[in-house]
């Protein structure tokens, strides 16, 4: 019943061996992260040309969009993790304001130590993430709906409690020296949040691409059933990812209140769009199973240049939304093309 010699075997072996040397180089250019990098470079060059006379390349010009990117970016990466794992989180738009108000109420209104305010804000973030993850894993309700519900619930609760505690929907907060320099300081025009973001990028990239458990995130989005069969704690990992996402949003809120010395309870709907656009422009597949941290970083930077730095160029401010829309479409099409290329890799080899 065995057929010992097959004629097409050696032929196949040689043709496959030849292509493996250049494949990691080629693989990069096939990956959506490369697309995100090229998109960023293209936008940067375009803006440098049109912004040369309008200080786009000045310190003020650069710090404006980099500072903006840092707060979006530290939320966008864990949002991207969730998207890779096949889930979505839009409750971030309510978690961030909730965190800012928590710090302001505890530290400004009740004059408690800064550490308590920060810890409470992060704990609230973690709790909201836990609720999101718990509901998503226990029910079959799509995470878009679950987090849409928590978005409104948390936004409403934040408004209600702000009025309840301080009879105001906004508050200022002047942190003590150490907290100001740690969370809300400035170095050469760059906010502290930029340095926090840099550290978080390294930690997130390590987790997703180098640590052994990074594969599990991709497995969730690739084939959840198989992941469960392979012994991956699907529910626990998902809950952890939701918690990471909400806690990151809360941390961004902490940095924001320390940097701008003010807190607001208004839900930040723009943040939801900004994080999701960054993630998609950064090459994460909407269907899950693929994405890179660096891709998301370039996605965030590109979005930030286009929305924040357009005032430093001769390009009409009103065009920024148009550019974002076009970019998003191109990115989605590229990502889709990537998936086709990746899954038909064997077919594209020279015969």
């Amino acid at each position, binding site marked *: 019943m065995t057929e010992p010699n097959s004629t097409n075997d050696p032929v196949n072996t040689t043709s*496959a061996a030849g292509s493996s040397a250049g*494949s990691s180089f080629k693989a990069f250019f096939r990956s959506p992260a490369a697309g995100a990098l090229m998109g960023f470079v293209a936008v940067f060059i375009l803006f440098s040309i049109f912004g040369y006379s309008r200080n786009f390349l000045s310190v003020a010009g650069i710090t404006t969009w980099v500072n903006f990117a840092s707060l979006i970016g530290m939320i966008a990466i864990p949002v991207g993790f969730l998207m890779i794992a096949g889930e979505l989180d839009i409750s971030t738009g309510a978690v961030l304001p909730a965190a800012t108000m928590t710090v302001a109420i505890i530290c400004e209104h009740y004059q408690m130590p800064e550490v308590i305010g920060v810890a409470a804000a992060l704990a609230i973030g973690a709790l909201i993430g836990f609720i999101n993850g718990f509901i998503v894993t226990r029910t079959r309700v799509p995470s878009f709906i679950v987090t849409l519900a928590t978005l409104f619930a948390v936004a409403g609760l934040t408004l209600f409690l702000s009025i309840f505690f301080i009879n105001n929907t906004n508050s200022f907060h002047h942190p003590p020296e150490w907290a100001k320099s740690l969370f809300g300081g400035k170095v050469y025009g760059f906010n502290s949040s930029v340095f926090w973001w840099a550290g978080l990028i390294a930690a997130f990239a390590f987790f997703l691409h180098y*640590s052994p458990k990074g594969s599990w995130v991709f*497995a969730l989005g690739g084939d959840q059933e198989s992941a469960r069969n392979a012994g991956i704690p699907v529910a626990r990992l998902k809950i952890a990812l939701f918690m990471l996402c909400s806690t990151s949003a809360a941390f961004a809120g902490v940095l924001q209140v320390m940097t701008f010395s003010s807190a607001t309870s208004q839900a930040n709907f723009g943040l939801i769009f900004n994080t999701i656009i960054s993630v998609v422009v950064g090459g994460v597949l909407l269907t899950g199973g693929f994405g890179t941290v660096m891709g998301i970083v370039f996605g965030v930077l590109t979005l930030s240049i286009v929305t924040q730095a357009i005032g430093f160029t001769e390009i009409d401010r009103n065009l920024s939304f148009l550019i974002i829309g076009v970019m998003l479409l191109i990115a989605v099409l590229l990502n889709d093309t990537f998936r086709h290329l990746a899954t038909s890799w064997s077919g594209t080899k020279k015969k």
Partner: protein
Amino acid sequence: MSDKKPVLELRNVDKSFGPIDVLSGISLKVGEGEVLCLLGDNGAGKSTLIKTLSGVCQPTRGEILMDGETTVFSRPREAQERGIATVHQFGGTYPLMSIGRNFFMGSEPTKGFGPFRVFDRKRANRVAVEEVQKMGITRITDGDRLVGGLSGGERQSLAIARAVYFGARVLILDEPTAALGVKQAAHVLRIVNEAKRRGLAVVFITHQVMHAMAVGDHFAVLIRGAIAADFRKGEKTREHIADLMAGGESMADLEASIEGNMETQGG
């Protein structure tokens, strides 16, 4: 019934999903160096049976014994840690991940220390490529390649290679030859025999009489969730086994009905 020491045993196992009873009163044994072939029609409950053996589901009633001791596999991981490796009927691979990462999913090799331990990509790729090549898929030479670019049979071979690599005591294969070509199917059967020779207990599900006859020592036929026949190699003829696999209907009748249909359609 078995002369060899049973590694895995089911005693009076029932399994229901809510109101749906899928398995009832299943008692089975598989010993060291023995191949148990599970046969049965579509929907008979074969996959559900192996899911209870691999910790994906827990039996509603009855018990599972490993090496004679009552055991509960509350998670797939626990079964894996006891040396039970399973290839499930569907999936098992992740298209947008590399061959190396697919192969070690859930049991990643690492290098480095403490919190800085990293996924050992080189080793994972090397082992994965070696093991897949042993399965006769010599076309795979690069562990960084994405699995999405492989053919269905190559993916199935990868899943089988993985189970063979991790299965220390028991190997469970749910229709492993379904997507495979003649040559690769022969490889799988050879691997099953090889695992048997090394003293592993093997549970093998197939719809092909030929494949079952080639490796099986012990056959159990499931019909609507209950064991309808349980016999050892050589106790029944090929025709009889084929009839049992068709859910009790005679092959000759089935063939006649197919021909009947052809005639009415053609005419």
